């Protein structure tokens, strides 16, 4: 039963972390605390942290047959990034 309670605590902590990250991101945008050149990267970094939390903790990506699950998501992510990159270049 202890192991299960641990899991529950972990879930709750991570949930709180996500909320806090969101609020920090929100605060950073509404204040001039970080220069606008760096800010996008900081915000994207926060987003990536949240995604990793979701994938690993909530979605059990590393459990059974984790390598297929990770391959699938990473492959999709790679192609998505490629697409976004070249579509963003069209702005120029």
């Amino acid at each position, binding site marked *: 039963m202890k192991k299960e309670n641990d899991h529950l605590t972990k879930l709750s902590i991570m949930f709180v972390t996500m909320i806090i990250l969101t609020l920090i991101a929100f605060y950073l945008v509404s204040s001039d605390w970080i220069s606008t050149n760096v800010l996008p990267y900081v915000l994207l970094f926060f987003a990536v942290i949240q995604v990793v939390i979701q994938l690993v903790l909530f979605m059990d990506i590393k459990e059974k*047959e984790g390598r*297929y699950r990770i391959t*699938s998501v990473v*492959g*999709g992510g790679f*192609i998505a990034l*490629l*697409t976004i990159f*070249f*579509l963003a*270049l*069209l702005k120029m």
Partner: protein
Amino acid sequence: MDSILQYFRTLPSDIILADISLVIITIASTFLLTKYKKWNWLWSWITSTDHKKIGIMYLFVSFLFFLRAGLEALLIRMQLAFPENEFWVFQGERFNQLTSTHGTVMIFLVATPLLIGLMNVIVPLQIGARDVAFPFMNSLSLWLFISGGILINVSFIAGGSPNAGWTTYAPLSLKEFTPGPSNTYYPIGLQVAGLGTIMGAINFIVTIIKMRAPGMKFMRMPLSTWSMLITSVLIVYAFSALAVALLLLTFERLFGTVILSSSAGNPLIWQHLFWIFGHPEVYIIALPAFGIFSDVISTFSKKKLFGYTSMVFAIILIGFLGFMVWVHHMFTVGLNANINVFFALTTMLIAIPTGIKIFNWLFTMRGGSIRFDTPMLYALGFIVTFVMGGVTGVMLGSVPADYQYHDSYFVVAHLHYVIIGATIFGVLSGVYYWWPKMFGKMLNEKLGKWNFWTFVIGFHFTFFPMHIMGLMGMPRRVFTYPEGEGLGWLNFVSTCGAFLMGIGVFIFMLNIYITTRYGKSVQLNDPWMKRGRTLEWTIPSPPPPYNFARTPIVTSGEPLWNAYENRKENIEFEGEYEDIHMPSSSSLPFFMGMAFLIASFGFVFQIWWLATLGMLGVFMTMAIRSFQNKNGYSIPKKNVIYHDKGVGY
């Protein structure tokens, strides 16, 4: 009544002809089905969840589409046979419809599903599985493909076919320049078919990962299975990109977004999205063919595939690089030079894994004992044709030279060399090779050879001159060309070649008819004179519904061949007989497909109640499916034993 007559008077004669033949075909098939009391038989196929039957239906339906698009190709060639020709009604607008639907149908509704169909039959047999992972979803994929296919095909007689090329570049494909339902059919029809394709691909992936027979490690899988695994991964990603592109076009045409318009948005977005899908698609339809050829060449040379490991890695590398080259379709749109050279390099790099495969095939034959049966002939024809198409591909990768080739007949020649050379030859090779496995009868060898030679010679006569036409300055998708540019005789040769190909296809159909009608059953597991190497040849032809009475235990990459070498008739089945659970057939996929069809018509013609009705049907069937838990039936052990001990056949 007068107005209806008036309407028919305004129709072009080709559409009237299509209408009439549609009516005749409907009446004739209804009559025949009723006369021979075959409605139940038809229904048992429609609702089947057996991967072999679904595969055969895939093959059948896409072959019908192949005939349609092939007929269009002949019409195109007739219009272009002479300079300044005016054949029937196919000039200008109607010629654009011809080329657009020819391309769309051939790529989406012929090449892709033909291979999926063949692999649907073969992959589970090759890995020693009783069915695919999701038999229900398999049937659903089929019916979504058929619905999408019907939609694209019916556009011809209901409102006009797509007419902006198979690539449907914006802004030409937008409402502003092509009003009416024509180019709305394209995104919606392909969306439905594409959805089915993605499901099918996921099905293959899970089947191959999870349903292999005990002992069949990844590196023991036959090449057909390997290539289908990689192809399925490509489909999952590439068709998703296509889905977004199509969604975007749908929004542009139906809901008034302005993302692709030249004034408020950027039409190049379409080109990027389309080719992010479009280039991997080329490998989606080439890789399974490579797999088929690997198996066929190895079988008919009596040799183990040369460099198996490097073949597998070549496939993976091609799949990966396939996603990195799409901008070579856009070299002339004026992106900056850095982007162009990057994609030129990746394009050329693809030649390396492809070269690995070609040489491995050649060296598989070395030291073997080669028989020239029809499947092997197609494989050999493929090597010649595909190498030629491949080298022009490298030439096209050279950016500045591509400024000359781009959108000219040189490209038309190249793409037909690659796609017909790989996919169509591959499917024909595979169909000849596995026909006895699917139907228990050998296709006639003599007609097969006639089929091969007419088709291949016709092919080279049709497409080789196109290289030269392109270099002479003939742009693609033109319905006419002036006299005095020297293009006349080349085009005429090309047209003659196209008719020779048509004869080839006719002989193929004749072969199927004669074989089905008069052919003898083969009665053997391995009808290719003890040359079979892989698991599909260890079971009866045609296989029982459950494929393997006992699960085979695999100890090498070519279990059957190893058994032959040890002077045995078949591999040892070591597993126990047991009750076999079979998925029950279901009519839901059919109804879901039809609901999608109804909804699609609603969307195309913007009849919103019809669209809503159709979508409701879709969700209803999905909900019903969600509540179905236990389904399927059991074949008792004693029946399985009875059949397997050789009493049944």
